[in-house]
């Protein structure tokens, strides 16, 4: 859920490049989730306020819950949230989770959300990386385009891309030596 929610902020900030990265560290039981974009960025004051659920830059409603929820879920595992942003340059938001904490939430349907992001934002270069130790799985809109895989908006292909992501993540997760709360 967080991935789609935070990337939606990047989309709204007019980003053309979004890098979604998960780094699972086996030795210190941590998962670092980050979203980096080249959108409009934020002022220092906005960055300070962004974790406040009653702050939003929208005019259609009075609450902004995406970042506060992310902060809550990582901090409840003993992790932390950091935001680096520069006006007109972009934003990087990084959440660190302790994966050995019982309150660490499962990853959820990463492949499903990622496919929807790729379908719904055909003009955006979205890059997804999941790194586990020395192994990693990467997929990007650019790479798919270079391989002329561009029919994602059809039911068959969206399911095929989802299967491709799931199969590769499943294989990557075999690297884990112990069972993980992340699933």
């Amino acid at each position, binding site marked *: 859920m967080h991935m789609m929610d935070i990337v939606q902020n990047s989309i709204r900030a007019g980003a053309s490049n979004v890098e979604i990265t998960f780094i699972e560290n086996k030795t210190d039981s941590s998962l670092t989730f980050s979203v980096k974009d080249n959108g409009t960025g934020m002022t220092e004051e906005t960055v300070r306020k962004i974790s406040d659920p009653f702050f939003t830059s929208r005019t259609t409603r009075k609450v902004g819950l995406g970042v506060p929820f992310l902060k809550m879920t990582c901090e409840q595992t003993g992790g932390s949230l950091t935001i680096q942003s520069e006006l007109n340059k972009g934003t990087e938001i990084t959440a660190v989770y302790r994966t050995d904490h019982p309150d660490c939430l499962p990853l959820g349907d990463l492949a499903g959300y990622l496919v929807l992001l790729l379908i719904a934002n055909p003009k955006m270069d979205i890059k997804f990386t999941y790194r586990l130790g020395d192994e990693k799985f990467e997929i990007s809109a650019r790479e798919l385009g270079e391989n002329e895989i561009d029919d994602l*908006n059809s039911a068959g292909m*969206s399911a095929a891309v989802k299967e*491709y992501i799931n199969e590769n993540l499943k294989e990557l997760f075999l690297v884990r030596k112990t069972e993980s709360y992340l699933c």
Partner: protein
Amino acid sequence: MEKIKTLADLKLKQEKFRSQVELRSKASRAEELVQIKVAMATCGIASGAKEVMEFFVEELDKRNIEAVVTQTGCMGYCFAEPTIEVTLFGKDPVVFGYVDVKKADEIIERYIKTGELVDGIIPKNYESIN
């Protein structure tokens, strides 16, 4: 059935689909297609917008309806999530609230296919989604 593990497998799959279905060039006349925007902010995602969006992507293709499904931010109707905005060619956008898979099916069969308005319309009160 063989699993899809490499980009080459994906490409093969795409070629197989393309040979089965006549390729439709959506990009060149996107404005003439049915436009569906699914609100994908925190409220929408928490209410099941992902399932609704997946349903539209799969079902519109299966039912041979040429459409562009995109995501958008919160339209301000958090109480009625998941919400979607549907624009038929030549018509004003219509916002539907409380859209689950059942409602999505009704919207496809009645509004998108025949233009008949169905329950669940939210009067639009915004100029642009922000």
